[in-house]
């Protein structure tokens, strides 16, 4: 087990280095750190001086090492537009995105588990068929369309829910960092449509996954044996079958959280949500390379960490890995 953890962490570090290398290479080629620091109106001599001072004429490798060194200490360069360290900008915007992702994640768990289990146990009922049909439809609708249509129906036509922004937020830690929409009624109302939109990408996938895993598990010999032992149906379905189903689903959940982050770019655009995704698009428009690369490194690291953590958790829960080793 220990060896397994070490190996996973080593793998993770390797991938993060690759990401940082790619990020740095791009930044090196197209970024303009001089402009980032002092703007456009500089004479060529001053520019050359500054380049020398910043070590921009050094060989690639030493620049890269410096980059990694800075990154590990939390310095990912300066945002040209915000005139602040890029990492600070990202951290500032992160809570907004996280709240959307957490909300969507909760929705997914609350909806896909019961529906997935139900459609696997009673696949021929009208309700099950309806759910499966709806999920095929759901897979075919891109997230931004779902968002737009939700806004149109609930915002423009029915005026039930707000169409953009985060609404009133509350300072959770008292230091101005995490402005949360979870604790105000207005904030919650603003969270509903974005979370539903984001969840809609993953819901069909999870319902189908849970259903098919469950159906496969229900056909196994050990479930048949459980019936032969005379256990109650509830115990067989919700304890035996469920635990075996849950294990592979957990790893998928981890990966999908990463994917949801990618889709926040789309959702935040539609809802004018001031999170990391929105920030990314603005950075593209403004050619703010440092911020773009910082985003890549941060988000990339988040993926890698989440995947690694999920794998390790899976290793703990699945006794065949935990005890026999891999």
């Amino acid at each position, binding site marked *: 087990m220990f060896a397994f953890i070490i190996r996973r962490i080593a793998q993770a570090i390797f991938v993060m280095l690759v990401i940082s290398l790619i990020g740095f290479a791009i930044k090196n080629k197209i970024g303009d750190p001089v402009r980032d620091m002092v703007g456009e109106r500089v004479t060529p001599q001053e520019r050359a001086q500054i380049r020398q001072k910043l070590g921009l004429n050094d060989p690639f490798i030493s620049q890269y090492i410096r980059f990694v060194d800075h990154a590990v200490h939390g310095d990912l360069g300066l945002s040209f537009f915000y005139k602040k360290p890029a990492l600070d900008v990202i951290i500032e915007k992160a809570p907004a995105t996280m709240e959307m992702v957490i909300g969507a994640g909760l929705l997914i768990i609350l909806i896909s588990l019961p529906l997935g289990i139900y459609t696997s146990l009673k696949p021929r009922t009208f309700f099950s068929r309806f759910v499966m049909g709806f999920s095929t439809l759901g897979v075919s609708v891109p997230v931004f369309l779902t968002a737009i249509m939700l806004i149109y129906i609930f915002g423009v036509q029915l005026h039930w829910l707000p169409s953009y922004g985060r609404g009133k937020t509350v300072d959770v830690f008292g230091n101005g960092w995490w402005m949360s929409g979870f604790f105000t009624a207005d904030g919650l109302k603003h969270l509903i449509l974005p979370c539903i939109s984001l969840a809609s990408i993953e819901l069909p996938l999870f319902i189908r996954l849970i259903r098919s895993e469950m159906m496969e598990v229900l056909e*196994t*010999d*050990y*479930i*048949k*044996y*459980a*019936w*032969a*032992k*005379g*256990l*109650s149906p509830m*115990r067989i379905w919700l304890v*035996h079958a469920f*635990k*075996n189903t849950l*294990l592979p689903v957990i790893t998928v959940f981890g990966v999908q959280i990463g994917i949801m982050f990618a889709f926040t770019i789309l959702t935040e655009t539609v809802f004018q949500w001031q999170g990391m995704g929105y920030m990314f698009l603005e950075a593209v428009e403004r050619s703010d390379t440092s911020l773009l690369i910082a985003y890549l490194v941060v988000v990339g690291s988040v993926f890698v960490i989440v995947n690694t953590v999920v794998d390790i958790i899976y290793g703990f829960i*699945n*006794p*065949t890995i935990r*005890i*026999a080793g891999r």
Partner: protein
Amino acid sequence: MSHLLEVKDLEVKFALRSGDLTAINGVSFTLDKGEKLGLVGESGAGKSVTGFAIINLISKPGFISGGKILFNGEDISSMNDSKMRNIRGDRISMIFQDPMMTLNPVFTIGTQMIETLQAHRQISKAHAKEIALEKLKKVYIPSPEKRLSQYPHEFSGGMRQRIIIAISLLTDPAIIIADEPTTALDVTIQAEIMDLLRELCDSEEMGLILITHDLAVVSEVTEKIAVMYAGRIIESGATNDIVNDPRHPYTAGLIRALPGGVLKPGEKLHQIPGMMPTLTDIPPGCAFNPRCLIKNGICESELPGLLDNGHGRMIACHMRN
């Protein structure tokens, strides 16, 4: 005289889109307390289905279409599921073929044993644990306390099957149905497990229905045999009688086909020509007739009944009765 278990004219069908297929076509046998019955036949003859039918656990689309299963005089074939659950796993336990596939890999042995007890008895976890330990000792598993918190994959095949046997003993059942209990195990372990089963059935006075294709195993363990072919019993009687003097041509073929039986060194293995028909291709008349060496005209048109030959033997053959 009332038997512990009486299966009367059991019929099992499979409901397919193209119509109903008969898998078990009128099977009858009895089992008394402490008696050991061997249900023998090739793969596909219907022995496992019969075993599952007794505890009403046939996989869909199979269903019991006729006949009665009397357990202590009560017909359990048409019992509703919640009442059946008092019998399944409690009064009648079942052992499956492959112990690795039978135990849930993500739960400990202890959990899987305790849950069985708690499903059938109103007892505390501690008490259940005691009983579990007792049964583990009965199947000769060393250091049972440690074992309870271990997982199935930590045991060898033979140990796993012992654990399954222990689980089947938890509720002190009246009957154990063992479906090919040793097929997935090494030959040396097979003998151990069969010895264990026989010993336990004798000491606890449990009935045993041993479902297998292995004649050698059956002849060691059981007191009576029923031979199945294409969904029916074609011969039944005392084990020793049948093994030494098989009357039905199929049974005779099976016995003759055993290596080491009647063969002299250098002789070729005897085979029964042809194959047992699948459910969809059962020929009219006696199902065995295409492969039978002693058949006659009537064998191709009329189904032979399972008749007593007067000496405690039941045979379904026009030519032997």
